[in-house]
């Protein structure tokens, strides 16, 4: 960290304007051997707070399991769902988790395709996040199902009943898309991990060694392996990017193909995709800060990388905001009176608090990311990233609940419907489940990609060499980071 200027947020604009040299993404002290040492150490001895997080997650998850068992035995009625309010938190949280899964792919696939190298230290855990959020989302498909014990009816396989699922149902599209996405991102995650698993294998002992040996499958880092690996990795990245877009578009069709007011919106697919990226990015920021502290990744998860991440998040937030606002605008200026009434109800009715909460958390709060202090204070940033995600969860809640509360049919409107403790318990349990899995993952597998950071170091070295060789002192390192004029 070669920062010389620290600023106070309020005084931001008054800070003496001068060129700040562009920071490298990684410090100069990072060597290949150090990378191995640091990352492998994270598998052994994280900070004690790891166990605090892990066990609280386990406790939450256990409570969620209790709630689900209770619901399974007594029927969905314990969730206080009713005739118009048939979905409740389960579907809202389902979409939330699916959405969370999207940014991992964005970081690992899209940024890989465009060779944005700063992704390298952080893409691994984002990809893991994708996988585990999808696993969490898949839980909700089951939790939501009235007859969980008959879930296999949804699966397309030749059976003795001679029946097939209904391929016109967006839920089947969902299942297919999520299945594809989960499979693909799991494979993507795994494949990208193989060289690192080999490193682990070469350095571990006992059961872990056996595990890594099994998983690394005998990777030796030969040139042929690397060449094939690179091609395959790029190919999969190319598949994953459109897949991610299609997954959340398809999820949006759960709503968009229906006629319900507030759902029957043409712009839903891009809106959902952007919402997904948005919540995913803020999720990545949250985990960035947590992992950085818990596993002592300060050397890899550096401020410049975080800065880029934040910029990307802000940009996505703005696009999402725009899409959200035009959705309202088209409804407002459209001639569908029911949809319009529904919109007004959202903003003024029983769920106005949630609506304005969403507006505040997801539309206003991103602007704090413009403040330098926020970007540099990890605690504040952690809180803000959580707030952004609360906003995005509220967004899903207020897509579903108010529409049911005020649909086409006045007789079945509801007033002030609220989910029961069972629903909240299961939602909380899902956070526990995700955190538990994720923490477990980080404890067992390298959550920073060692070989790619090595590449990054290698490239930085090459660049420096090239720079040194050039006499031209073009301001590669002298682009002002803050907005402002010339000195």
């Amino acid at each position: 960290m070669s920062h010389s200027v620290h600023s106070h947020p309020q005084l931001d604009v008054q800070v003496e304007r001068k060129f700040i040299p562009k920071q490298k993404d990684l410090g100069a002290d990072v060597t290949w051997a150090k990378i191995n040492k640091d990352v492998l150490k994270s598998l052994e001895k994280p900070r004690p707070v790891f166990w605090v997080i892990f066990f609280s997650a386990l406790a939450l998850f256990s409570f969620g399991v209790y709630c689900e068992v209770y619901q399974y035995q007594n029927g969905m009625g314990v969730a206080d769902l009713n005739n118009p309010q048939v979905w409740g938190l389960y579907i809202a949280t389902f979409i939330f988790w699916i959405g969370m899964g999207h940014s991992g792919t964005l970081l690992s696939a899209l940024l890989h395709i465009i060779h944005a190298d700063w992704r390298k230290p952080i893409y691994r855990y984002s990809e893991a996040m994708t996988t585990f959020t999808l696993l969490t989302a898949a839980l909700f498909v089951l939790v939501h199902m009235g007859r969980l014990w008959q879930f296999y009816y949804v699966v397309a396989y030749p059976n003795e009943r001679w029946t097939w699922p209904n391929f016109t149902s967006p839920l089947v599209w969902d299942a297919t898309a999520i299945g594809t996405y989960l499979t693909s991102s799991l494979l993507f995650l795994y494949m990208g991990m193989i060289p690192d698993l080999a490193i682990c294998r070469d350095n571990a002992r006992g059961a872990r060694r056996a595990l890594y040996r099994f998983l690394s499958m005998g990777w030796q880092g030969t040139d042929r392996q690397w060449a094939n690996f690179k091609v395959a990795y790029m190919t999969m990245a190319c598949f994953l990017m459109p897949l991610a877009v299609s997954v959340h578009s398809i999820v949006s069709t759960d709503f968009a193909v229906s006629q319900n007011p507030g759902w029957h919106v043409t712009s839903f697919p891009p809106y959902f995709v952007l919402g997904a990226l948005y919540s995913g990015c803020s999720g990545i920021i949250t985990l960035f800060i947590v992992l950085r502290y818990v596993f002592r990744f300060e050397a890899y998860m550096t401020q410049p990388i975080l800065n880029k991440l934040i910029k990307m998040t802000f940009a996505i937030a703005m696009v999402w905001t725009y899409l959200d606002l035009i959705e309202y605008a088209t409804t407002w200026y459209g001639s569908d009176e029911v949809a319009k009434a529904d919109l007004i109800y959202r903003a003024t009715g029983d769920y106005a608090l949630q609506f304005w909460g969403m507006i505040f958390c997801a539309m206003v709060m991103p602007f704090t990311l413009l403040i330098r202090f926020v970007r540099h204070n990890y605690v504040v940033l952690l809180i803000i990233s959580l707030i952004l995600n609360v906003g995005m969860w509220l967004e899903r809640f207020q897509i579903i609940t108010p529409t049911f509360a005020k649909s086409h049919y006045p007789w079945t409107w509801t007033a002030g419907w609220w989910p029961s403790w069972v629903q909240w318990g299961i939602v909380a349990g899902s956070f526990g489940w995700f955190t538990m899995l994720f923490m477990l993952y980080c404890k067992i597998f390298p959550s920073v990609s060692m070989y790619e950071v090595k590449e990054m170091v290698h490239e930085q070295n090459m660049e420096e060499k090239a720079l040194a060789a050039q006499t031209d002192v073009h301001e590669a390192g002298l682009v002002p980071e803050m907005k402002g004029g010339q000195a």
Partner: protein
Amino acid sequence: MKKSHTLALYADMDEAANALRELKSSGMSGFRMEDVVVKSPIDHPELSELLGPRPVYIQWFTLLGVLLGPTTGLVLIASAQASFIYQVRGGRPVVPLPPDMVLTYELFILSGVLMTVLATFVAMKLPGNRSPLYNASVSEDKIGILVKADPQSIPQINEILGRHKPLEIMGDQAR
């Protein structure tokens, strides 16, 4: 004739490259450039270039996947819809194209990915056994050059490799 192996470890990429260059230009008999393997912690295209053309065929498998997957998928879905207990739903056609396209698209991606992965493992010969001449340091920060050659050529090769400041040279016999 049974071949022998030798492995040289280099700390510096440029030295390794020089070693390869020398191997290539030595023109000696008893070994082929194709049998030279570079083991490295990261991909080094610079080194690979020196080894000669080593084409990658994964994309053909991918192509196969993206062709077969969606077509068989679409036919299966449509035939399932049109099977004996077909039912009209919501006034839509029994074989509705837009929903089928959605699924076909997903199958397109899924089969593409699966085929790619499959092909990759095949191409990388994984899962497989590590060569006995493996050194853990190539997964850390060293570059290894593994040469397969007739046993009588090994000393000569070792000499070439030894000229470029290797950290260590290991051979079958060293074991």
